[in-house]
């Protein structure tokens, strides 16, 4: 187990290096024009450009350029030149909003995704299964930002039946109730997509597992159906869901909820990246991309360990 862990950690480290190198290529090498001028943004002065050139070692060979980018990201002296604000500080200040959004939404989508999957698998082929399948497909087809806009229009604008506050984020420590009501719509919007997706994946997993020999044996032993379903079928069908969930959760924590955060004006990590897109301000996007990818890589190690714990067959020896 220790050897497996060490091997997995070394692998993860190599992926991190490769991924950050790709980020370097995306921002410094691939686009045309002078990288320093591009990174400095629209309102840059010559001094800004010279500063970037020096900080990111842009006059040096590529490995020193890469090193300069990583150093400025991890020593927290990367500055967004359109706002003159420190990028790492801005990301850190966005973390509470992002985490509140993602953890709440994840609870909702896991719960309802499992419910939807189990119900439609147990009633496979019947009307309730068909209705759920259609709803799940509609959920998968909704662009999350559009759903958010429509929700805001319906529930938060100046209507007689307005009952939710319109966007923004209130810290949990300031006012828990306000925190909750402000997050209800974003949670719902973000969860809808995943509920549809998880429900469908779980449904087909359950239908695959339900025909296995050990399930028939369990039924033949006379175990109650509910017991077979939960202990034998669901436990095995949930394994792929664990992998899926680990990666999706890491991605949204890392800022992949960028559209939800933007639509609901939740000032989180993704919102910060989205603001920079409009200003063509590259350092924040660069930092958020690396930050998100690090989350995903680290979570994938955790998922692998969890996987090994859930499924003895793939437990490393």
């Amino acid at each position, binding site marked *: 187990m220790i050897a497996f862990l060490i091997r997995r950690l070394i692998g993860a480290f190599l992926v991190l290096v490769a*991924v950050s190198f790709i980020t370097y290529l*995306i921002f410094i090498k691939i686009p045309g024009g002078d990288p320093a001028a591009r990174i400095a943004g629209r309102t840059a002065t010559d001094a800004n450009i010279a500063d970037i050139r020096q900080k990111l070692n842009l006059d040096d060979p590529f490995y020193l350029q890469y090193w300069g980018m990583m150093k400025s990201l991890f020593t927290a002296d990367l500055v967004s030149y359109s706002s003159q604000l420190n990028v790492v500080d801005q990301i850190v200040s966005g973390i509470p909003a992002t985490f509140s959004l993602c953890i709440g939404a994840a609870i909702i989508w896991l719960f309802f995704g499992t419910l939807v999957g189990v119900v439609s698998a147990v009633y496979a082929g019947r009307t309730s299964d068909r209705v759920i399948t259609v709803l799940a497909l509609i959920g998968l087809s909704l662009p999350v930002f*559009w759903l958010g806009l429509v929700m805001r*229009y319906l529930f938060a604008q100046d209507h007689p039946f307005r009952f939710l506050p319109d966007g923004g984020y209130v810290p949990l420590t300031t006012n828990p109730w306000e925190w909750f009501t402000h997050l209800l719509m974003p949670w719902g919007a973000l969860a809808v997509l995943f509920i549809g997706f998880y429900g469908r994946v779980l449904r087909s997993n359950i239908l695959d597992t339900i025909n296995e020999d050990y399930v028939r044996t369990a039924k033949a032993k006379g175990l109650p159906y509910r017991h077979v379903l939960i202990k034998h079928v669901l436990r095995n069908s949930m394994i792929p869901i664990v992998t899926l969930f680990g990666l999706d959760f890491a991605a949204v924590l890392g800022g992949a909820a960028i*559209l939800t955060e933007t639509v609901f004006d939740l000032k989180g990590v993704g919102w910060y990246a989205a603001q920079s897109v409009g200003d063509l301000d590259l350092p924040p996007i660069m930092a958020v991309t690396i930050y998100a*990818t690090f989350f995903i890589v680290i979570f994938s190690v955790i998922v692998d360990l969890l996987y090994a714990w859930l499924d003895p067959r793939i437990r490393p020896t």
Partner: protein
Amino acid sequence: MATDSSTDFTLDSAAALAADERGEIEGKSPWVLAWRRLRRNYVALGFLLLFVIIVVLCAFAGTYASQVAHTGPNDNHLGETFTRDGKQVPVVSKGGFTTGGGFVAGGIPVGPQLWHAGGRYVFGADNQGRDVAVRLLYGGRNSLKVGIGSAIFCTVFALLTALLAAYYGGWVDWLISRVYDLIWAFPVLLLAIALGTALSINGFHHLGINLAAGSLWIPTGVIAFVLIPYVGRPLRGQILSLREKEFVEAATAQGASSVRVMIGELLPNIASSVLVLFTLIIASNIITEAGLSFLGAGVQPPNPSWGTLIADGQSRIVTAPWLAIIPGIAIVLTVLSLNVFGDGLRDALDPRAKVRVER
């Protein structure tokens, strides 16, 4: 060979069926069988029809603009009026006090007219006085171009790399799989935003390809690139298991070249999966494009797309909700039609079709 359907003991029901229909047994390829299953799935076919209608409507955006709406997608009609049921109505309200003593807020565009204005402003106007229906069709054209174009690039590239990786194995497989892993490690939307934004400043000028900053090819290429592992990985897995089958061995033993084995033996066997993945990836690409354009990292103005239309309407969701809601409905209908059809296609092509389980 004709079968006498009056024979008392026909055990072969397929033969009996054939006898009823045409009086002879024909060899049926898996494609014919799949088509027979699909033909009975009216829901899937209905949604395919819906998708075709949307594509055709968007293809005739120019005709609609010149013949029905009499305006282009970027024509500004601020301060103009149009005839509605014989009365003159301003395209964008001027604001101020009316003669009756009421107050009208300024700058509010006219709402959906449907057919009351003789084909003008069917879905209303935006704050520049531009015709939303015209922009919707032109935007749809761009969204579909990017969605379908990137799906083609993505599928072709993923298919090629998956074939090479699974056929040759060894270091080729290692290299291609690691490239998939690396792209996979990025969150799709963030990687697309990073690439889209970085390339929207000065365009792309490498490998002999020169793309200007506002080119539609940039979002197309970006979306195709970020989704490669999502298509390539499942394909590679399938080819890997086919690779061990006897028919590949037989072909190799007969002296077939590697290209021949890949194209003649492996490709036909994964064609159905490719087709299903292709349908579903168009749907996901259209959503990704909309998200990218909504954030300003996809299709660049003045080119409209469904995503930029929603972004434009976002700030006017209270006074002019149709601006954001109508393009969204267009996206949902298009993506839903592809998802439902793709699902039906998979059911028809997948002979295992475990989906319908009897308990």
